[in-house]
Structures are given as C-alpha cells and as structure tokens.
C-alpha cells in the first residue's frame, strides 16, 4: 500500500513536472511560428503573408507568461491541447490521434517485444554460461553501441532501396486507405518491419546484457542451490526460480529506462519517415509549433508514465514483497 501511494505520488509529480517543462521550454525558443513558417518556405511564401499569419495564429495579442501558464493548465484539464500551427487550425489532439497509433504500434510493441525477447535471451545466456551462449555477448555489445539511426539508414540502403524487399519510408503504401482490411494491415505491417527490426536489434542487446547479469547474480543465491538440491527439473529451476527472481530488477529497470529507450527509438521514425509522433515532434520543433511540441512531448511523457505504471503493476504482481502485507 505504502509502495503504491509513493508510486502514485511519483506519477502525479512527474506528470506535473513534464507539463511545466513542456510549457516553459518551448516558450524559451527564440523566434516564432510565423517567422519559421516563412523561413521554411524559403521564398515560396511571400513576405507580405506575415501579417495575416500573425492574425491567423492569434499571436497578435500579448499575455503574461503566468497567465498563459494558468490558461494552459486549465486547457489541459479540459483535455484541450490547443491548435497546431503547422497544421493550422487542426487541433493538436487530432494530429496526435493521427500519429500516436503509429508510434504506439511501432515503438510500443517493439519495445515490449525487445524487452521480452532480450530478457528471454538473457535468461538463456545467463543460465547456459560457459557454452555457446557466451558468443552472444560480444555481438550484443557491439550492436548496442550502434546508434539507432545509423543502423536504420544502413538497413534502408541494404534492404529497402534499389528494389529491396522492404519499403524505405512511410507507414503504409501510398494509395492504401487506412481501414481494417487486409490490404492496409499487410501494408502497415510490411512498412513497420524494417524499423521494428532496427529498434529490436539496437535495444534488445541492453536487455540481454542486464538480464544475463541478473541471472548470474541470482544463480548464486541459496534458493537456487536449494532448488537444485530439491531435484527440480532444469527448466523449473531456470524459469521458476532463477529467471523469475532475476526478472524483478529488470522489470523496474525497464520501467525507468523507458524514457531513454523511447527517446532513442523516436529517431527511427525520423530515419524511416514513419508517420509517428517522433517524426511529428521533430517537424514541430523545427516549425516552432509550440502547441504541437508541447502536446507531443506531453503525450510521450504520459505514455512513458502509463507504461511505467503498467510495469509497476507487473512488478507488484511479480514481487509478493511489495503487495499488501498479510
């Protein structure tokens, strides 16, 4: 109970911190959306458009920053993230609704798969130490040191460009209409394979390594020896005793490093021109589209928090010591 209370407090605090950072940081960015819209058009938008744009974006009125902060919080409570500038007058929430599913689908699922697969491989590598499993280590170390984006670019060159088997960009084939039919689903899956593999390769290694280390640490606990002494089957000892315990720190590690992972994986979207929030964030930062930047940053943070909450609940389930005292 105390554990939960502390976690809840932590979530509230983090969410607040994110919201606040979220509000103030973009406002410190010099320049404004109009200037940057003009700048990005590099001449294709006439300079005389400036005035009308200021009026359009509602940037012609002045308000104190504190007042704006208050308004912002109020808006958030109403679930209103404001209007995007780049896609004016589309509400940020609509932009997010378009892009978030892609990110959740790609980054979310692959992160979880990466964790599960990495953990599984780590279990094997830790358990079968001194055998072929040790070969995994140097490879894993090397892979985990390669930046996501570079791996992605190489993957595009080798597997996508020049008649390769994979598309190099986008979330689905142009011309396919998003709906739940085979065409679209296949197209979406097809487009997500390469980025997903990239994420898997570079993020899985971390889990392999940490799970292996935890397995080694746990393997020398007394209860493992006892389990062997009890004559339990190899699999039971490995899974029910060693892996089950080694998993605990890994799960809480997973929760807390989600922020790091997600930050890195967003880059994959940029490289693969994947229509997710990472790509949008990058565009929005360039466009000084504060409402969008804020919205995306907030949503990423909140998603990470929710994932965290989820991981916490899993942890709570896995570790009886954190449950209510009996």
């Amino acid at each position: 109970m105390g554990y939960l209370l502390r976690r809840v407090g932590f979530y509230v605090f983090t969410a607040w911190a994110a919201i606040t950072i979220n509000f103030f940081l973009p406002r410190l960015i010099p320049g404004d959306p109009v200037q940057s819209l003009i700048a990005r058009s590099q001449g294709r938008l006439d300079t005389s458009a400036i005035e009308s744009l200021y009026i359009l974006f509602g940037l012609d009125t002045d308000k104190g920053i504190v007042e704006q902060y208050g308004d912002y919080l109020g808006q958030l409570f109403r679930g209103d993230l404001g209007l995007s500038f780049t896609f004016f007058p589309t509400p940020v929430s609509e932009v997010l609704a378009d892009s978030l599913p892609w990110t959740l689908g790609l980054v979310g699922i692959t992160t979880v798969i990466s964790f599960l697969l990495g953990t599984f491989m780590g279990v094997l590598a830790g358990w079968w130490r001194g055998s072929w499993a040790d070969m995994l280590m140097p490879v894993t170390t090397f892979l985990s040191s390669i930046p996501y984006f570079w791996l992605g670019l190489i993957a595009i060159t080798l597997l996508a460009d020049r008649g390769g088997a994979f598309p190099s960009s986008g979330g689905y084939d142009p011309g396919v209409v998003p709906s739940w039919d085979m065409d679209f689903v296949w197209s979406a899956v097809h487009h997500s394979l390469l980025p997903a593999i990239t994420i898997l390769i570079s993020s899985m290694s971390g889990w392999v390594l940490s799970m292996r280390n935890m397995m080694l640490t746990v393997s020398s606990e007394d209860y493992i020896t006892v389990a062997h002494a009890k004559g339990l089957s190899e699999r039971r000892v490995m899974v029910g005793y060693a892996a089950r315990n080694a998993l605990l720190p890994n799960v809480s590690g997973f929760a807390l490093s989600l922020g790091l992972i997600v930050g890195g994986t967003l880059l994959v979207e940029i490289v693969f021109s994947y229509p997710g929030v990472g790509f949008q964030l990058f565009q929005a930062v360039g466009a000084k589209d504060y409402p969008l930047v804020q919205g995306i940053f907030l949503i990423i943070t909140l998603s990470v928090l929710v994932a965290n909450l989820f991981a916490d609940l899993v942890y709570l389930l896995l570790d009886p010591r954190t449950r209510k005292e009996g």
Partner: protein
Amino acid sequence: MALPTADVMPVTAPVKRRRRSRLLANRKATIGLVIFGFFCLLAVLGPVLAPYDPGERGDQLLVGPTADHWFGTTHLGQDLFSQMLDGSRSVMLVGLVAGVVATVLGVLVGVTSGYLSGLGSEGLSALSNVFLVIPALPLILIITLSLPETDDMTIALVIGCTSWAWGARVLRAQTLSLRRRDYVEAARATGESTWRIIGFEILPNLTAVIAASFIGTVIFAVLSEITLAFIGVPGVSEWNWGAILFWAQSQQALAQGAWWWFVPPGIAIALLGTGLALLNFGIDEYVNPRLRSSTKVRGVRMRVGFTPVLRGSGHGHD
C-alpha cells in the same frame, strides 16, 4: 543504448592491492581501455594529423576511397578522412564533459539523497526518477533548441544536466546500503564530521560504481550528441561525426552509392561505444565477481547445481 546493467549490486569489499591488476587482468576491460585510449589520442592529435583542411573544397567530388583520400570525398570534394579526424575531438570532448557533469551531478544528488534521510532525500530521489522517466532525447532536443547560442560546451552541459539521473539512482541505492554499514557508523562514533564521512568513508567505496556510471553517461552523451548533430541541431562542431552523417544524409549519400560517407562515422561510433561498454563490463565484473564470464577452464564447464567431478587431476595431497 547501453543500459547500466545490474541494478543494485552489493559492493564487495574491494581488494586494494589486487585492484589494479585485477581490472587489467580482465580482458574486456583491457580491450575497452585500449579502444578508449585510441579515441582519446585521436581527439588530441586528430586535427593535427588530418592531411587536409576538413572544410577545404577539392576537385574530386564525391569519389570513393583513393590513395589521396583514404575515406573518399564529399560532394564538395572535402576529404572525409580529415573530417573524421577533426571530428573526433568534438565527439570525445562533448562525451567526456557531459560525462563529468552528469557524474558530478549524479554523485551529488545520489550520495546526498542516499546519505541524508527524510524529505530532502525523498525529494531528490523523486527528482531523479522524474528525469529518468521524461524521455531524454526529446528533452535534450527541446532544450538545445531553446538556447540562443549553442556550441560544443553548451551541448555537453545540456546532455550532462539531463542525463545524471541514472547514475544518481544507482549511487543512491549503493549509498543507502553503505550508510548502514558499521564502518560508517563507526566513523561517526569516532567523531568524524559528516562531509568527511561522505568524502572519505563512503565515496571511495563507490569508486567502481561511479566509474561505471561515468562511462555509461559518456556512452549516452556521445550517442545523444551524434544524434543531435545528425538531426541538424546547430552548435555541434563542424565535423563532429554526427555532422558528417548529417551531410551524408542531406546529400542522400546512400542513395547515390557514396557508402564511404556513411560507413566510417558509424563504425567509429560503434567502436567507441563498444570500447566504453567493454570497459564498463570490466568494472561491473570487478564490482560483482559473479559476473565474470569465463567459467569454462580447460574443458570443464562449471554449473550451478552440478559440481563437476574431476578424476585424476590435481589431488588434494600436498
């Protein structure tokens, strides 16, 4: 992204005498150290060694590796080998500075919140968790773009100031376990002042953990910095490897078949990362001897639960 491995490891009593030799005896650590040293050397000498001015335009546009240009040239005829050499300084500088900043912050926050108790401690710990949860790269991106002026140093500072949290967390956990140690209490009972206890009794015992967290942050900082440069965030030195990749990407080098523009920076980053990661494993294994990988000596595989029986080898007789 190399995650710090084991979460909280008991700090085994360090064996001072054997310490140095043992860390070096670790093959991983040695390889890691050699790679790291090599890149440090490059950082110092690279710009001097560069055969060309990295920004100078040449006549040979976008040619592959030749005797004149070992790593080929860019679309402007700039020598990529020189750019790589020149860029190593910025990469290493930012990585190390960010590592130092993050480590110092991590030690300050982690050790303080671990040693002190009460609200302040909880607050600091919550703060580091917040920093952990907020996605790092977008945060760094937003902050760097918010700054009016950026150069290598400011970027290093930004990365350093945002990536201390993991180190702080690990250090806090370690400090918490050390704080209850009798020798800390004993030092208190002897009349040592608080700062001396932290500085002379606790910190030295955290050296390995601090070193590991430092190296972890350097890896993270290098990757972040290169990523920023690759995205085109200004301020990172001209020929930072990420900037080279940025140019390669904006000139669609891969589509043009100019692999030489892409491959060297990527390999260099991966190599540096691998070196640092190996060094970190060395430290991890040194801190936690259970992690030593080799349990297979002379054909005998040691397993938990089934002790091997050797017949005829070294008998117990004197």
